[in-house]
């Protein structure tokens, strides 16, 4: 659970930081077009975002931070918090997720299982056997406990083809696979985007 939270936080933060960096880069680039005190000059950007005022207010805070007192104590706690957050982010980025297997049978002698990716490959190959289906994609997920899992099959068909027929055909094709691995199947149909490639 902690790992999941750490991974989510790392992804969110990475997204926010890269977006912020991109926006800042664009701003600096745009405000480098002109020089001196023109509209699109860096000095004007400094004025616009009020960096002078920011410097004045942060300067006061930094001075309080250097001296002993409540501000320094709060800053110390914030620093410790930042270290914990950093460690959490490192765990989120570096920790490897252990893939759960779809268990077919589990006894005292051992288990019989399959990797979700392998089942997805089979489901895609089976789904594409129908002549109405141009392409199929599958996502398989193992149950946390016990046997079985979920299979989500997406069948792509031509605009002129019947979506319901493609869905039914896809479901029929993967039925045997789903039954042998106790997979709960969900099939949906899609028309490929214009210009999308068909494998």
């Amino acid at each position, binding site marked *: 659970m902690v790992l999941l939270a750490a991974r989510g936080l790392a992804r969110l933060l990475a997204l926010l930081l890269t977006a912020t960096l991109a926006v800042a880069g664009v701003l600096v680039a745009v405000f480098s077009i002109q020089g001196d005190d023109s509209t699109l000059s860096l000095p004007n950007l400094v004025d616009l975002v009020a960096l002078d005022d920011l410097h004045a207010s942060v300067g006061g805070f930094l001075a309080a931070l250097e001296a002993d007192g409540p501000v320094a104590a709060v800053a110390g706690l914030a620093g410790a918090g930042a270290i914990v957050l950093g460690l959490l982010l490192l765990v989120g980025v570096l920790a490897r997720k252990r893939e759960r297997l779809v268990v077919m049978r589990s006894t005292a002698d*051992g*288990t*019989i299982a399959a990797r979700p990716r392998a089942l997805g490959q*089979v489901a895609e190959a089976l789904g594409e056997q129908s002549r109405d289906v141009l392409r199929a994609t599958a996502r398989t997920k193992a149950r946390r406990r016990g046997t079985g899992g979920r299979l989500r099959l997406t069948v792509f068909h031509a605009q002129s083809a019947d979506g319901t027929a493609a869905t039914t055909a896809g479901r029929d094709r993967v039925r045997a696979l789903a039954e*042998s691995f106790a997979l709960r199947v969900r099939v949906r149909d899609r028309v490929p985007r214009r210009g999308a490639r068909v494998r």
Partner: protein
Amino acid sequence: MTRDGDSGPAVSERAMLAVLAAQAIAVTDGVTATSGPAERWQTTSAAGTVAGVLAVADGRGRVELELHLAARWPPSMPLRQIAEQLRERVRRSAAIAGMSDRLGDVSVAFDDVLTEAVSG
């Protein structure tokens, strides 16, 4: 887990059970052993490396085996039946070698499929 010097059964026993399992996989139709993209699923000992079989001392004097397989699709028989047949082969081989009391759990994982031969 499969390094030399672990507590539990001697390396030779683990290696021997791993070899027996690899032989059982080799004679089973429709499956091949796979050691995975990072070569994680293999047993390394002084006797050599056995791909696709992870032999682990369970700490109670027995050896657990994990058989990692790539299955051809469509299979000649249900995958579950293939797995059961394979486990039975491994247990029989261990019994013939006089090591059935050393053999612990035998798990089978289908890690990959070879779907090139899929036909309507």
